[in-house]
């Protein structure tokens, strides 16, 4: 179980380095997704399966979709000289394959908990909605503020008037 943590940590570091060194935003995004998946694997080996699931669902799912759409709207992903064909995708593919092999090894070894013990979703939920209930309220206010601000900044003035008129 320990070696799985180190493998996923190495994958996370390599793909994070690829993110900050890539020229094309789309290639960096693919590497960033692999990095988040590797961090999720690290969470799982640390005995935090709920955090691992959230990392995949929220980070690698929702936030990355936002990034992909933003990159497509900004049209910065397709510089012609950066279009390297297969070579740009080979490294994230290899890293993701390493994560897949790791996952298959973990599954095939049976339902074995990480050595450090598991803090399951039930304990997290009890703590979240009992001890940290005020934090949940503040987080909801923050998300509402983020929603309002994103809508305010996202609307280009001039286009809204066309729609209204």
């Amino acid at each position, binding site marked *: 179980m320990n070696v799985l943590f180190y493998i996923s940590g190495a994958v996370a570091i390599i793909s994070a380095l690829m*993110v900050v060194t890539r020229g094309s935003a789309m290639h960096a995004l693919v590497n*960033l997704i692999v990095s988040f998946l590797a*961090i999720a694997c690290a969470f799982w080996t640390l005995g935090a399966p709920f955090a691992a699931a959230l990392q995949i669902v929220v*980070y690698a799912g929702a*936030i990355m979709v936002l990034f992909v759409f933003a990159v497509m709207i900004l049209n910065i992903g397709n510089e012609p000289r950066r279009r390297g064909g297969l070579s740009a995708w080979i490294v994230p593919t290899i890293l993701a394959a390493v994560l897949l092999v790791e996952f298959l090894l973990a599954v095939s070894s049976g339902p074995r908990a990480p050595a450090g013990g598991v803090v399951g979703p039930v304990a997290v939920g009890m703590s979240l909605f009992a001890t940290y209930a005020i934090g949940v309220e503040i987080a909801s206010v923050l998300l509402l503020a*983020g929603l309002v601000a994103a809508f305010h900044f996202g609307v280009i003035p001039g286009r809204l008037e066309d729609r209204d008129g």
Partner: protein
Amino acid sequence: MGSIPTSHALMLAAVLFLIGTIGVLARRNLVFVLMSIEIMLSAAGLAFVAAGSKWHQPDGQVAFIFILVVAAAEVAIGLSLILRINHYFRSVDSDEVSLLREESDT
């Protein structure tokens, strides 16, 4: 086969945070800056989860959930700001948008 040493998990978090910092400092493209900030937030969450797993308490994962909320709000506002900047300046280069307002536009 003992449990993973907390220091190793914290070291991984520190390295990831450092990579994100380098990305924020070195890249001029605002989208890359935002992606590097995501790496940094993720590394901070990893540190929290590692600390929570050391003492077998759920508090680390609760703090990670709050970091997740902050990251979601931050990326939504940041990307909408970048779209707005791209609309005004036709560029997402942070050197070209060092002014909050175009000088010719008033």
